[in-house]
C-alpha cells in the first residue's frame, strides 16, 4: 500500500504548478475575472498544448488517458491558481458526462473536439428548485425538443454546446440552436460565470436515455473538492507568509499563539481535505465499492474546510484581508460557489448517512 504520489504523478503536479504560475498568475486571473466570460483563447490553446483538455479521456478520441488521481492533481493546481474560465465546465463536467453516456459516434462528434481544445462545453443541471437530486428535475424532452429553464449553468456563454440533463435523458444542444437563450446570472465567484439557459422548443440530440450520471457527477464533485484543496493551500501559503512579516507590538503576528494556532488549524484542514480527495480519486479510478462514499466524504469535508480556512486566513490578515486588492476574498468566493455546487456538506452528509446507516455493515472495506 502506497498513499504517496508516484514519480509520474509528482512530475505532473509540479509541471501543472509551474504552468499555472507562469500562465495564470494572480494579475492574469484578475484580468480575466473582470471580463464577461473569464475565457481567454490564448490560455485555452496553452491548456490544450499541455494535454490538459484530454487528460482522462481515451486516446481514441484524442485524449491522454490518464487516471482520476492525475486529474485531481491537475484540478488541485488549477484551484491553487484560481484558474478562470470554462476548464471545469468543459473538460471535467461535459467531458465526463459525454464519456459516460455517449455512443462512439457521439463521442467522436462531441468529446473529441473537447480533447483537441476546439470546443468549449458545459452541463445544465439545476432548475428553479435548485435541487441536486436528479429525481426532482422537471425539464422533459418531447420529440427531440426542449422547453424550459435551467439555472446556474457554468460558462454557458462560451460553450459551443450545452449538455442538458433532463428527466428523460441527456441531450446536447448547440449553442446557436434557435430557441436557446443564454443570459448571465450574477454570482459571487468572479472566475466561474453562471448563466440562465432558456429553451423554447429547442432542438436537442439525445446522447443517453435513462443514463446513470452518478459516476461522471462523482468525478465532477471530486474535482471541485480538489480545486478547493488547491485554494486552501494557496490561502494557507499567503496567510503564513503574512503572519511571518506583518509586525504588531514589535513582533511578527505569527509569533502570537492566537494567530499561530489558527494557521495550524488551516494546515490540518487543508491536509485532511487533501487526504480525503486523494482517496476519493483513487477509489474512483479503481471502481472501489466505497467510491461514492469516498467522494461524498471528500466533498463534505473540503466544503466545510475551505470555508473555515478562508475565514481564518482573512481574519489573520485583519483589515488587509477585507480589501479588494488582497486575493483571499477571490478564493473565499470560489469556496462558497464550490461548496454549494454538486451538493454542500449537509447534502453529502445525508448521502453518507444513506450509505453507512441504511446499509448493514460499516466495517466492510475493500481489503476486508
Amino acid at each position: 500500500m502506497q498513499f504517496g504520489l508516484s514519480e509520474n504523478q509528482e512530475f505532473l503536479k509540479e509541471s501543472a504548478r509551474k504552468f499555472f504560475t507562469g500562465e495564470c498568475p494572480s494579475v492574469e486571473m484578475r484580468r480575466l475575472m473582470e471580463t464577461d466570460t473569464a475565457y481567454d483563447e490564448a490560455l485555452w490553446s496553452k491548456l490544450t498544448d499541455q494535454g490538459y483538455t484530454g487528460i482522462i479521456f481515451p486516446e481514441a478520441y484524442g485524449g491522454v488517458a490518464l487516471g482520476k488521481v492525475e486529474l485531481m492533481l491537475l484540478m488541485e493546481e488549477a484551484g491553487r491558481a484560481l484558474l478562470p474560465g470554462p476548464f471545469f465546465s468543459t473538460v471535467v463536467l461535459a467531458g465526463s458526462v459525454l464519456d459516460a453516456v455517449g455512443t462512439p459516434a457521439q463521442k467522436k462528434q462531441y468529446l473529441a473536439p473537447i480533447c483537441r481544445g476546439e470546443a468549449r462545453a458545459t452541463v445544465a443541471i439545476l432548475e428553479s428548485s435548485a435541487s441536486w437530486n436528479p429525481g426532482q428535475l422537471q425539464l422533459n424532452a418531447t420529440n427531440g425538443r426542449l422547453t424550459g429553464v435551467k439555472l446556474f449553468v457554468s460558462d454557458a456563454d462560451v460553450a459551443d454546446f450545452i449538455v442538458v440533463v433532463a428527466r428523460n435523458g441527456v441531450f446536447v444542444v448547440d449553442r446557436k440552436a434557435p430557441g436557446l437563450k443564454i443570459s448571465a446570472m450574477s454570482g459571487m465567484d468572479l472566475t466561474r460565470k453562471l448563466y440562465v439557459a432558456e429553451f423554447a422548443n429547442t432542438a436537442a440530440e439525445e446522447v443517453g436515455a435513462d443514463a446513470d450520471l452518478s459516476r461522471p457527477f462523482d468525478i465532477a464533485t471530486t474535482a471541485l473538492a480538489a480545486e478547493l484543496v488547491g485554494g486552501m493551500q494557496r490561502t494557507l501559503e499567503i496567510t503564513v507568509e503574512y503572519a511571518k512579516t506583518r509586525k504588531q507590538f514589535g513582533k511578527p503576528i505569527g509569533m502570537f499563539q492566537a494567530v499561530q494556532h489558527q494557521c495550524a488549524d488551516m494546515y490540518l484542514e487543508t491536509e485532511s481535505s487533501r487526504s480525503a480527495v486523494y482517496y476519493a480519486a483513487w477509489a474512483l479510478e479503481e471502481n472501489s465499492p466505497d467510491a461514492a462514499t469516498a467522494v461524498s466524504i471528500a466533498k463534505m469535508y473540503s466544503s466545510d474546510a475551505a470555508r473555515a480556512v478562508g475565514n481564518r486566513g482573512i481574519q489573520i490578515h485583519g483589515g488587509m484581508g477585507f480589501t479588494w486588492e488582497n486575493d483571499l476574498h477571490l478564493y473565499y468566493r470560489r469556496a462558497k460557489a464550490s461548496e454549494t455546487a454538486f451538493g454542500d456538506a449537509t447534502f453529502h452528509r445525508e448521502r453518507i448517512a444513506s450509505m453507512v446507516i441504511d446499509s448493514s455493515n460499516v466495517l466492510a472495506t475493500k481489503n476486508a
Partner: protein
Amino acid sequence: MDLNLTAEELAFRDELRLWLASNVPKDWSEWREKPMEESYSYLRSWQRKLHEGVWAAVSWPKEYGGRSATLMEQALFWEEMARVDAPPMANSLGLGLIGPTIIACGTEAQKKRFIPKILSAEEIWCQGFSEPNAGSDLAGLQTEARLDGDHYVVNGQKVWTSYGWVGDWCELVVRTDASAAKHKGLTVLLVDMKSPGVEVRPLRQMTGESEFNELFFRDVRVPVKNVLGKVNDGWNVAVSTLMYERGSYGARLHLTFKRYITRLIELARSIQRNGKPAADDPLIRQKLAQCSAEIDIMRFNQMRAFSRITATGVPGPEGSIQKIFWSELNQRLQQVAQELLGPYGQLLADDPRAVDKGIWSYAYLRTRGNTIEAGTSEVQRNIIGHFVLGLPRSY
C-alpha cells in the same frame, strides 16, 4: 499511489490472521471489566503468547525479536488486533516507546539486558517525563541527578506516570547540568523501580480510576551504565520517543472508532425519537455521518503519513496532525453518543439501566483527557506552527 495491499503485506496479514484465529483468548470480554490490577497478569500472559509467535513487537528489527515490519504492516497489525478484539499488551510503553528508544540509543549491554524482558512482559516499563512544574514545558523539568562516583543520585518528583504502580523499570528524564540551557542539561536514566528511595502513589483521575501515578525519588542511586544515550543529550533521546508515541498510537484507533460508530448506528436504529427510530432523524443522521466520515479521514491521513515517513525514514512533526485529529474527533464522537442516548448517557457502569454497561458515560469522561495526554492540543499546534509552517516560536 496504490492503496492495494502488496503481496508481502497480504502475506503478513494472512499469517497474522491465521495465528490470531487460534491464539486470541476468548474470555477477554469478561476480564476487561475488572480493575487493571486484577487483569494485569492476564495481559502479561497474552503478551507472552504474542511474543512466542513473534508478534509482540512487529516494528522492531528481527535481530531484537521483531519482524522489521514496515509502517503499513504495523498498521495492519493493529487493525487485525482490533478486528478480533484482542486484549492490549501488558507492556505497551515498553514495546511501543521505550524498547524502540533503547534499540536506537542504547549500548549493546543495555539492549541485551533489557530488550528480551520487555518482549516477554517479565519487566514492565513506565515513563518518568512530566513533573508538577514541567508539563507542556517538559524541558523545564527539575528532577536532578548528581554524579557520585559510578552512580547518579536522583531527587525529584514525576507525575502522570502510566503503569507506575506495576512498573519494574522507568525511563526517567533528569537534569544533570543545571548550568546549561534548559534543553541541554537533560539526561535519560533507566531506573530500577525497586531501588531504595522510589515511592509510587496513585493519582485518582476524573473517571475515578487510577491509570496514572505520582513518582517520588529521594536519593535514589542509579548506576552510570544505565544512562540511555549520551549524558546531557536526554532531550533528543526523549523527543525521539515522543515522536514514536504520536506517530504510532493513532494507528490502532481506527477500528476502535469504527466499532464505536457501528454500535452508535445500531443504537440509533433502536432508540426512538419523535415517534420514529433516531436513525431516521435528519439531525442525528447528519451527526453520525460527520463522525463516520472523519473516522475515515483520520485513516486516510494516517496512511498518507505512513507513506511519507516510509519515504523520509523518520516520523516528523506531522504526527501532531494525527494527535489533534484523533483526540478531538473522539471527543466529538462521544458527545454525539451522549446526544443520542439522552438521559441514559450519564448512567455509570453499576446502574442496571446503563446502556452497554456504562461504556458511554465512561468514554465521555475518559476522552476529555485525550486532548491533554501525550502532548496537549495547544502544544501540538505550537509544533505545527513552528516546525511545519516555519512561524516564529511563541515561547
